């Protein structure tokens, strides 16, 4: 037993009493702009946490820098406000050292995909059991309004008065390209769905990557209103669910069908196609996940929202612990005296 185990041996492994959302509110004043989408994300996370059956002393939220990265301050768990882009690497170190903790990363489209892109894809490929909430507001909020790697081509911002000439990342595709084992998308303005997806991520064993569409009402107001507002949402979002066909529309009268690999919208009322012609979602289908992720780049298709991909594969930290366990089993607990005297030695009298 090391000193950490020794020290924490009596700490409860499950919550002693049933938490409420309020238990997860820290004593810090929340300082996002009034109206910011971050508030809702915070509220939903705080609402979901009691359901996870994890004592809050075992939870850690780690972030980089950005408005979104202020998140840890507001959670009454352990919190670590890191440096720009490096949260996944900090989380990796912590999770390897302490597989017993529930480790969460809060990041932004700039933090996670611009400066931090490399750590993000590496944590995905390694598959540490860390949950990543990427607040995508398609803008740099904290630095007051430059375009981000998810901003649309041609976007006019402080740093691109003539419009940006950058082709944006598709965050889901980046995560899938790095072979993340869990990839999902949800919306700041859909509390239920947000809660659902967070819970699913928490249950997943492995790196869970969640893109959250988040409104920055100060520098990029309404970027996702088509997908989040009442009057347009139903016709522009398809909520995907495992083993369910892709149906959407205010009247649930439209669906997504594949022609070859190309998804297209079909009407379920004009007699041409029925529910049976539609894509049936399968979270474990790698290729389907690419098709769904790509849909955001194809005009006139609704935006898929939900758990796009979820498969299990070995956990990095578990494999590492296994190696250590095996080494100890085979060679015995390390003996310092033996180590220092290992190999060739000689005695001078």
């Amino acid at each position, binding site marked *: 037993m*090391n*000193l*950490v185990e020794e*020290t*924490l041996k009596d*700490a*409860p492994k499950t919550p002693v009493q049933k938490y409420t959302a309020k238990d997860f509110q*820290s004593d*810090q004043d929340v300082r996002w702009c009034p109206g910011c989408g971050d508030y809702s994300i915070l509220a939903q996370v705080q609402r979901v946490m009691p359901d996870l059956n994890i*004592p809050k*002393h*075992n*939870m*850690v939220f*780690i972030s980089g820098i950005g408005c979104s990265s202020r998140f*840890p*301050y507001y*959670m009454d768990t*352990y*919190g*670590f*406000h*890191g*440096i720009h882009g*490096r949260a996944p*690497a*900090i*989380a*990796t*170190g*912590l*999770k*390897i*050292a*302490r597989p017993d*903790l529930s480790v969460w990363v809060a990041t932004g489209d700039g933090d996670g995909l611009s400066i931090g892109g*490399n*750590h993000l894809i*590496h944590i995905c490929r390694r598959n540490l059991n860390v949950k990543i909430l990427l607040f995508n507001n398609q803008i740099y909020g904290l630095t007051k309004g430059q375009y981000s790697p998810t901003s649309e081509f041609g976007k006019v911002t402080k740093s691109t008065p003539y419009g940006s000439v950058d082709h944006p990342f598709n965050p889901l595709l980046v995560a899938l390209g790095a072979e993340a084992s869990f990839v999902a998308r949800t919306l700041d303005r859909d509390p239920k769905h947000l809660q659902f997806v967070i819970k699913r991520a928490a249950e997943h064993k492995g790196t869970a990557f969640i893109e959250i569409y988040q409104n920055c009402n100060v520098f990029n107001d309404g970027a996702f209103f088509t997908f989040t507002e009442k009057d347009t949402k139903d016709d522009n979002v398809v909520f995907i669910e495992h083993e369910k066909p892709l149906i959407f529309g205010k009247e649930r009268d439209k669906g997504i069908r594949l022609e070859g690999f190309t998804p297209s919208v079909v009407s379920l009322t004009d007699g041409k196609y029925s529910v049976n012609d539609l894509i049936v979602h399968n979270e474990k289908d790698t290729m389907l996940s690419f098709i769904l992720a790509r849909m955001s780049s194809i005009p006139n298709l609704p935006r898929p929202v939900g758990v796009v991909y979820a498969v299990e594969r070995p956990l990095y930290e578990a494999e*590492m612990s296994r*190696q*250590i366990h*095996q*080494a*100890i089993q085979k*060679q015995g*607990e*390390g003996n*310092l*005296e033996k*180590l*220092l*005297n290992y*190999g*060739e*030695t*000689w*005695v*001078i*009298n």
Partner: protein
Amino acid sequence: MNKDLKNLDEVTIRFAGDSGDGMQLTGMQFTSTTALVGNDLSTLPDFPAEIRAPAGTTFGVSGFQIHFGSTEINTPGDMCDVLVAMNPAALKVNLRSLEDGGIIIANKDGFNEKNLKLAGYQSNPLEDGSLSKYQVHAVAITALTHNALADLGLSNKVIERCKNFFALGMMYWMFTRPLEPTIKWIQEKFKKTPELIEANTRVLKAGYAFGETTEIFAVRYQVKPAPLKPGRYRSITGNEALAWGLIAASVKSGLDLFLGSYPITPASDILHELSKHKNFRVKTFQAEDEIAGITSAIGASYGGAIGVTTTSGPGMALKTEALGLAVMLEVPVVVCNIQRGGPSTGLPTKTEQADLLQAVYGRNSEAPIPVIAANTPADCFFTAFESVKLALKYMTPVILLSDGYVANGAEPWLIPSVNSLPDIAPKFRTDPEGFYPYLRDEKTLARPWAIPGTPGLEHRIGGLEKQHITGNVSYDPENHEFMVKMRQAKVDRIADDIPLAQVEGDQKGDLLVVGWGGTYGAIKTAVDNKRREGRSVSHLHLKYLNPFQKNVGEILYNFKNILVPELNLGQLSKLLRAKYLVPTITLSKVQGLPFKSIEIENKIDELL
């Protein structure tokens, strides 16, 4: 045949050949045996920059130097007395480090036309008289090896690979060393291929017999055992010692060791070494880059492990931002910088001491970090141990400076008993009563280590300026100044905790030679030599570079002149001048090579 047996106090031998010629192995065997017979010694391998340079070229030459004696040995030797050269390129590259009158043992068979040309020789130096100031012994090592193995039916390639043992055998004869240790090693090493045991043993013995029976060597040497402290010894390189020092600190403290590192020469071997010791629960994480290396270590430290990262040159540069974070968070991480030649990619396989100012000053804003340096290969053990100790006690990042020379060099090490190692007794905060993340220990000014998993201590930290005691984000001007000074004070306070600096030699005098890190051996040798000549010169070697030990100023003021030899353009000098306002004389060498003690002696002569 009866040959002269001469006694020597100390000898330096260099084995040199192609990268593929097994010179490192030969050197290491000679070292082991020499250690076993009780000499003090110091070694230095000298790798080519290329992985496998084409055979026969000068840039593919691999060398191994060993300096051993019946007296105290502190450096691998300035110049060699004996040079074993397996081919012309090896001769060409190493001749300048051979003493006038020194012995050359050359593999005559390696000096064929092709190799001569590759090395850039117009004529054969073994024959053209150009080596007349040396004692040249041209031995047909390849042919003799073939002869020795003629009846074994081995392939040419295998036979060729044995020829280094012929050379080794000759050297064992010449310096009256026993063959048994190497024969035992051969038996162990090749236990799965008995024909190689036979072959290598035969060749080794053949080389020995060759010395014994042929006429070409008239003299044989004896180097008596050195009066070493009694005890069990081993040979250890700097990087091994560093890795083991970290493990020892882990064992002593009861904390797991976490290494987040990205490979880079000459630091990679620490990663390699630590990754072997999983039964010590050491977790090694080969990160995607140096930034992930240090930030993962910070994450691990935050979680209650000893977070360590190891690197060099460009890798150290990349850690700059995260070092600032560690300063702000006040978490214990140890950053080992195995310095190499720079700037930029520079001279990756060569040594240098030019990252001192970076270690002390090289971050945005006021971000003080303790800096300590290793003096010798074995000293890396203590230095690593001490770094962890300070990091844990003061809740601070610590920079450990080693260098390529110290890292790859080896020396005999009196194995410490585990009980003799100082205690490290970290404590995690557990009591929620009165807990504040930045409420400091009165004595050390360290903040509490409150690891995730502890009920009731949930709190939040980060890189923004924080309020004294509560650790909450604070933009308050006075608080900022207070915290900036507090962080500085915490580091300064370490000076009260560490032992006072010790002068070697007189406490007052005409000249003080002040060094740090890997120049220890060269300076010590030089100063000892000059003191033996009766000069008023002393030696101060600074292990603690930030903060300086409390009595450093006092010591400096006791000498008329201060000489600071450094493998840079005068970095310690700058620190001493700025702090103590004393004039210093810099002896600078920036060649990717360690000092020769003679270079320091010459400078001392000039000044006295």
